[in-house]
């Protein structure tokens, strides 16, 4: 980016930068500037950006042998007095993002000795970020590999996977998200496509243990979300105890169910939940756990095509069917079935969701050869605000048949 108009001379610019930085150190919320001051990060460049109201960084390049993703380099723009360099690695996080203290000490040691002493403990991909000095890049890769993690996940590749904490610390986990997370990484195809960018655009895989979706699987290119079939399980005796202790108001609980599936039978003092209505909002489960638990028949809902950055803007994924909690191998195969037509046909910089919008979900599923339990039948092929379409005879007959049946039902 070029210098903004009316940029003050360098000494005034630097002075203004320092004023802004000082201001950002005040206040009750933790300050990033205060943290950056304790490191060798070129804070002056950041300050100049703020004073100029323009990003001070331009694209740079640092080559690290056989590391094709996860290295990002920036050089300060020519209007930043004194220039500057910023290089960082995206590093894979541990399962559930648990950091034992000995691991933290290893990371901080590497960061001090080979980097600038600055760590972004979590990025939005779910990886963490280590700033480094460019001449130590090779060494840092080896150091990170020796403590059991690695660099990767940027560009048009599979990005760092993300799974919620799951059974490690959460009672709501409906399947073993961290086991899935591990199994995905053990697959050769996943490894290769994380290591080398080969796709039209980025591809994200996220795994959430329950419909609360802490891993944000709804906006992944392919997301796996734990659900159950039918109604939640109610332990009536335990629930009555909660009611007697005044912990739960059953009438309120029923009234607040977003699906309207709950009824409190005051006479028999029983909670009745209609499984066919249940939309798995977790409302009652969160209010009265463990008296109300998710149903026993657990499943993993698959959503595809979500994403924030893409040709047609932010999207939530589309539901395409269920897997079982033990079908992690099938999930990996499914991921690559989904990738195949997109990789082969999509234009550059189309996310999977963008490609599906152009192709149509039905057509896409056909091309990818996906068959899953509970696949929804498509509601309509074209948006339903246009009252004209070319319809084959079978389709017209289908509507006729539909209404013929209806005639019998309503007695016309």
């Amino acid at each position: 980016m070029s210098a903004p108009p009316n940029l003050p001379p360098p000494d005034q610019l630097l002075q203004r930068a320092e004023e802004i930085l000082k201001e950002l150190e005040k206040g009750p919320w933790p300050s990033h500037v205060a943290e950056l001051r304790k490191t060798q990060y070129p804070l002056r460049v950041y300050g100049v950006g703020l004073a100029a109201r323009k990003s001070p960084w331009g694209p740079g390049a640092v080559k690290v042998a056989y590391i094709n993703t996860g290295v990002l380099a920036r050089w300060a723009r020519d209007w930043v007095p004194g220039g500057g360099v910023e290089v960082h690695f995206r590093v894979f996080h541990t399962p559930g993002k648990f950091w034992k203290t000995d691991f933290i000490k290893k990371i901080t040691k590497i960061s001090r000795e080979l980097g600038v002493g600055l760590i972004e403990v979590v990025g939005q991909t779910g990886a963490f970020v280590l700033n480094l000095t460019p001449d130590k890049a090779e060494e840092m890769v080896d150091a990170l590999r020796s403590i059991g993690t690695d660099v990767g996940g940027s560009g048009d590749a599979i990005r760092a996977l993300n799974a919620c904490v799951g059974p490690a610390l959460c009672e709501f986990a409906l399947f073993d998200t961290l086991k899935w997370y591990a199994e995905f990484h053990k697959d050769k195809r996943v490894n290769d496509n994380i290591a080398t960018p080969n796709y039209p655009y980025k591809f994200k895989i996220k795994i959430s243990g329950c419909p609360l979706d802490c891993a944000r699987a709804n906006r992944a290119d392919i997301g796996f979300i734990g659900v159950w079939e039918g109604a939640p399980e109610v332990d009536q005796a335990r629930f009555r105890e909660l009611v007697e202790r005044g912990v739960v108001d059953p009438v309120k609980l029923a009234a607040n169910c977003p699906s309207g599936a709950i009824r409190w039978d005051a006479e028999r003092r029983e909670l009745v939940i209609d499984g066919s209505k249940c939309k798995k909002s977790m409302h009652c489960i969160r209010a009265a756990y463990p008296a109300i638990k998710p149903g026993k028949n657990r499943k993993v809902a698959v959503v595809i095509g979500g994403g924030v950055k893409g040709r047609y803007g932010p999207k939530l994924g589309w539901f395409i069917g269920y897997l079982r909690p033990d079908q992690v191998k099938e999930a990996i195969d499914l991921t690559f079935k989904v990738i195949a037509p997109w990789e082969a046909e999509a234009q550059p910089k189309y996310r999977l969701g963008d490609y599906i919008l152009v192709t149509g979900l039905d057509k896409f599923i056909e091309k990818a050869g996906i068959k899953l339990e509970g696949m929804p039948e498509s509601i309509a092929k074209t948006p339903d605000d246009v009252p004209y379409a070319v319809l084959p005879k079978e389709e017209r007959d289908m509507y006729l048949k539909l209404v013929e049946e209806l005639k019998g039902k309503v007695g016309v």
Partner: protein
Amino acid sequence: MTAAAPSKAERLQKVFPVDLEKFLPEAILRNYGKWVDRKFHGYGIIEHVSATGERIFTVKVALPPNARLSADTLDKFADIADKLGIGALRVTMAGNIEFLTDSLEKALKIKEEVEKLGFPVGGWGGALWGINSCTAYLTCTTAVVDSPSITKALGDALKPYFTGEIPLPAKLRVFVSGCPAMCAGGTAIDIAIVGQWGAPPKIREEVLPMCLPPPKALAKLPESQIFLVQVCPTGALSLRREGDKVKLVLIGEKCINCARCKENCDAFDYDPENVGVSILVGGKMSNTGTGPRLGRVLIPWLPANPPRYEEIVAVVKHIVETWRQHAQPGERLADFIERVGWTKFLDLLGFGKVRDYYQRVPEFARTFLTYRSRGDVYPRLRDGI
């Protein structure tokens, strides 16, 4: 003979930190999958109860914007975790850190210690759970506004909602992104703040050739094969041929400011005078209440004035207060808006006039919007399961 040094090509086989035995603390491994209950002990502290009878307490601590920590501070955290915890902590997607410990006394001591270091404890239940920020001016080449400093200004103003001094009806999360790429997590969140150019980009002619094929090839290639033309979703970028000269031009009226050209080529530039943020409300990812949804634009443009961003802070505070005073207990912002209706929500905010403006979409954005609306014919998670 000595063994050959390991080849660097081995780096193509990544080392993934997926071994649970190695990376999970022992107390977690002992109780893996055995958790049965949780109890709240004030804002930020939760007790996890296992079927084995063991308990783990977590203490949620807010981090600086963009989750940036110096090695020194992280070491201090590790020391606290060793002294008072079970020798481990957990990083959350919300950009917080959770200390793990085994008793409430220790949890309260951890709270005291980190607060002494200047990090507030809070979140969980009806509270602000944290503010996510992208990196923006700290490292990003395409950022339009600086989200970490906006986050800092917001954090200073919203801290009482995080620590529980002012209780909220339900969970509140804020995402602050520096440009329309929305790397802080998109718009599916209670309040999303997204930086934008405000006006169509300017092309820096001297840099543009780097993003185009060589002039000879450019003269022969059809327009549809040019990468930058492909990248634009509304056809605002097109080739103009005059004699034997070929030029890439931007048709300002067709531009919707999606910033995709900027993401793919450094030649697109903006004037800081036009720059601002748009504020979106009522999105969320979780299937609670009315289900996952994207946020909706409340204010399409506000100036972003460092370092205190008074305009943005004022609007966000106003939204939170309006929601706090009118929502039912347990009702997230998205569910509240769904219940009272968008128009009523605008009236409650006193933004009635906004209705007249926010829907104005350029005629040429139709291609973009048509493709977007195609997606609505397929069921998403809420309708699918």
